[in-house]
């Protein structure tokens, strides 16, 4: 039971729980009387405490323990939720996050949490600051040093709590000492078997020597464990004796009283530690009182195993898997067309079945790489809360479409740019409550963070109802910084002016704050987004607010397309941009300013004759009817005129290679069932 293999899981789950804490605390702040939310936070804190204690991160366990106590007081209506109280709890969560982060980057997860612990304790006990709480952490190390000498188990307050709680739940606690044969060869294997049996019967809460040392066979012939179980003493003993090469099993039942006397003895023997041990007892007793109050929710939690198993896979391996799967898809397409030609029932059935299975497989593989943007978005409410306090503004953050999924690689990169943009909106966009009031706006500003799919892209938008972009100020600044020349400035459209704030070395705020950088931020945002193959647009109305719209590619390598024919050439139109297809008569085509348009469900849609755009060599002429694919880019639409529709197909998106790095209106290529290459049309380039 080496803990390192659980480390990843611990880190992931800790993050989840901390995130849950954050979210619920924010809700709690808005509904201070909702005990259900307190329960949620309490549950997260409690699980975290259990996990961190198991993993040996004392500081985290210590801090969560105190946090839990405070939450418990709230739950029992002994304390009321105040902003001050929440501030302290938020600090605690922050520190927890810091420690988890430290662990994640290979550190020990140590942090001086004394002051926060004291603050929490002060809140809990009504503003008294006892000394005991501050020395809990060092005791553990001394105790464990002793363990190895005496081979008698001693417990820290967390473990004692569990024992205490299990008594209340009619569980018994046994100290079991296991002796192995002198000539036992694979001691670690026996230890493993013993532990496996023990864990079937109950929970091992302590072992001496430590689990790591047992696994490394770094012990003599015997070891001792503490087990919390519902089984009878005899049953436990009998079951353990079945493990071969075990010579002796001694099972001792014990109670808290026994333990206390034992610890007292120990402290008397060891004069050096006397003082500290005394403190432990004080602290213990205090904890017992608290734990008893906590009641059943917490006790049942300690025995719940952590479900939802995950493994981490290197993204490179997923890429390899994806590449192999792409080849399979191409062959599938080929098989489908062969089976159509041969027209053999058995072959058809097999191919059909294979298509279904590969379809399922495809979903799984694609989903493995897709992550909801929620993972990025969920840290923003907390950030906004903090910033609004720092800035003395009233701002409400609204998140829409957090379930929108994006490829993992994009998700990893998009976090920082969004932080910059949101900070920018809060700092420069939303005005202070006084100004807002004076301008006839509600005091509370609104920032909307929105994500949605459209076409082959994912859009992330940040919209605020703040001051908007001041054209004159931006221009003045841009000219003084040499970003644009004075003569050019006058001819720029509002949108172009807005885009100037993305140029490097640009910042219009006279007083720089530490909130939104030093004028380098937005420039970095633009670069990052462009490096991801995306674009950023700004539209702004002065006095009304601004909208930052980020367009990101869905780096999906398998997409659904509609195949269309232009003379003898086959092109693919991504299904995601298609609204519908239509067949129209030449008389339906209207002329508007040299642009052929059609009336499509009450809307005027411009027509794009792909044959002309793509300069397709013509063989036939004069069509009786036109086949039109109606596509869209955001709000705009266009009708692509093609010769015939072939049908829908799943295809593998391939790049045209570096040699043909950017071809007009072609986003890539794909290989069809017959082995030929078809080009994929980039509808966005065709819609102006």
């Amino acid at each position: 039971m080496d803990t390192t293999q659980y480390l990843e899981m611990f880190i992931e789950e800790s993050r989840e729980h901390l995130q849950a804490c954050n979210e619920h605390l924010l809700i709690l702040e808005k509904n201070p009387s909702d005990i259900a939310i307190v329960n949620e936070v309490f549950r997260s804190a409690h699980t975290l405490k259990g996990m961190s204690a198991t993993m040996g991160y004392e500081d985290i366990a210590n801090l969560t323990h105190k946090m839990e106590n405070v939450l418990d007081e709230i739950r029992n209506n002994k304390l009321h939720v105040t902003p001050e109280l929440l501030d302290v709890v938020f600090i605690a969560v922050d520190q927890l996050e810091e420690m988890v982060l430290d662990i994640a980057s290979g550190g020990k997860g140590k942090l001086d949490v004394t002051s926060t612990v004291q603050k929490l304790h002060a809140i809990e006990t009504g503003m008294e600051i006892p000394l005991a709480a501050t020395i809990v952490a060092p005791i553990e190390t001394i105790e464990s040093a002793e363990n190895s000498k005496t081979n008698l188990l001693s417990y820290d307050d967390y473990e004692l709590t569990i024992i205490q709680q299990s008594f209340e739940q009619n569980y018994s606690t046994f100290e079991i000492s296991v002796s192995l044969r002198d000539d036992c060869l694979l001691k670690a294997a026996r230890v493993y078997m013993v532990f496996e049996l023990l864990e079937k019967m109950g929970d091992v809460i302590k072992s001496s020597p430590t689990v790591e040392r047992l696994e490394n066979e770094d012990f003599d012939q015997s070891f001792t464990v503490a087990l919390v179980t519902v089984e009878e003493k005899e049953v436990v003993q009998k079951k353990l004796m079945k493990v071969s090469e075990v010579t002796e099993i001694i099972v001792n039942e014990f109670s808290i009283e026994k333990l206390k006397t034992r610890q007292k003895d120990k402290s008397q023997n060891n004069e050096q530690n006397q003082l500290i041990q005394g403190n432990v007892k004080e602290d213990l007793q205090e904890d017992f009182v608290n734990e008893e109050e906590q009641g059943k929710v917490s006790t049942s939690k300690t025995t719940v195993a952590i479900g939802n198993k995950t493994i981490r896979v290197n993204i490179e391996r997923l890429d390899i898997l994806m590449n192999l799967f792409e080849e399979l898809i191409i062959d599938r397409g080929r098989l489908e067309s062969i089976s159509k030609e041969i027209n053999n029932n058995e072959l058809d059935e097999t191919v059909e079945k294979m298509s279904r299975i590969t379809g399922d497989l495809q979903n799984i593989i694609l989903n493995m790489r897709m992550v909801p943007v929620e993972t990025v978005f969920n840290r923003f409410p907390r950030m906004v809360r903090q910033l609004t306090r720092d800035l003395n503004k009233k701002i409400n953050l609204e998140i829409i479409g957090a379930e929108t999924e994006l490829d993992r690689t994009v998700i990893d990169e998009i976090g920082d740019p969004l932080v910059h943009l949101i900070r920018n909106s809060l700092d420069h966009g939303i005005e202070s409550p006084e100004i807002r009031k004076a301008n006839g706006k509600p005091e509370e500003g609104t920032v909307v963070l929105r994500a949605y799919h459209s076409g082959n892209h994912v859009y992330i938008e940040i919209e605020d109802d703040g001051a908007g972009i001041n054209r004159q100020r931006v221009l003045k600044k841009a000219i003084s910084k040499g970003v644009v020349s004075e003569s050019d400035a006058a001819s720029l459209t509002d949108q172009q002016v807005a885009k100037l704030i993305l140029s490097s070395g640009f910042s219009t705020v006279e007083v720089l704050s530490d909130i939104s950088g030093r004028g380098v931020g937005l420039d970095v945002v633009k670069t990052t987004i462009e490096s991801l193959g995306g674009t950023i647009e700004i539209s702004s109305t002065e006095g009304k607010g601004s909208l930052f719209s980020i367009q990101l590619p869905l780096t999906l390598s398998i997409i659904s397309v509609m195949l269309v024919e232009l003379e003898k050439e086959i092109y693919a139109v991504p299904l995601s941009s298609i609204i519908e297809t239509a067949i129209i008569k030449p008389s339906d085509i209207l002329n508007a300013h040299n642009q052929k348009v059609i009336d499509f469900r009450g809307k005027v849609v411009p027509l794009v004759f792909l044959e002309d755009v793509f300069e397709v060599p013509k063989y036939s002429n004069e069509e009786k009817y036109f086949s039109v694919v109606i596509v869209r880019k955001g709000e705009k639409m266009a009708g692509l005129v093609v010769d015939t529709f072939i049908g829908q197909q799943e295809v593998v998106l391939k790049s045209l290679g570096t040699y043909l790095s950017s071809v007009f209106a072609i986003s890539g290529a794909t290989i069809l069932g017959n082995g030929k290459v078809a080009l994929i049309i980039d509808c966005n380039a065709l819609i102006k």
Partner: protein
Amino acid sequence: MTEVVDGSFVKVVVFQLADKEYVIPVSQVQGIEKLIHITRVPKTPSFVKGVINLRGVVTPIIDLKNRFGLGESSLDDSSRIIIITQNEMEVGIVVDSANDVLDIPTDLIEPQPEVVGGLESDFIAGVAKIERRLLILLDLDLVLNPIKVGV
């Protein structure tokens, strides 16, 4: 400049375009393919024939004859596609025929004579005279300079 093996010999693939013989170092040749279906890519320069499916990889094909301003290659059964790798980029070139692999002593390679006129001289790294054949060594860096068209 193309790379030189051992300092004494370069192994090259010889192919024909119009009446002239050109060579490319074997180390840069991925393979020689028979002509298969080429998908035209719109809005590209005329020497870009299109793309082919080379065992699952979409590979652009260029017509060297057209690139050198020597007219259009007539695609027939003897036409071959030589797949070249250059700076991790794969490109196929259409040639009239590919018929030989030779070892050229490096000291026989001379810089291109200044009088060789025409567009193709821009792409020549050197010439080598072996027996009675004049072999033209191509500078693939220049031939395969990526093109950016459209937006």
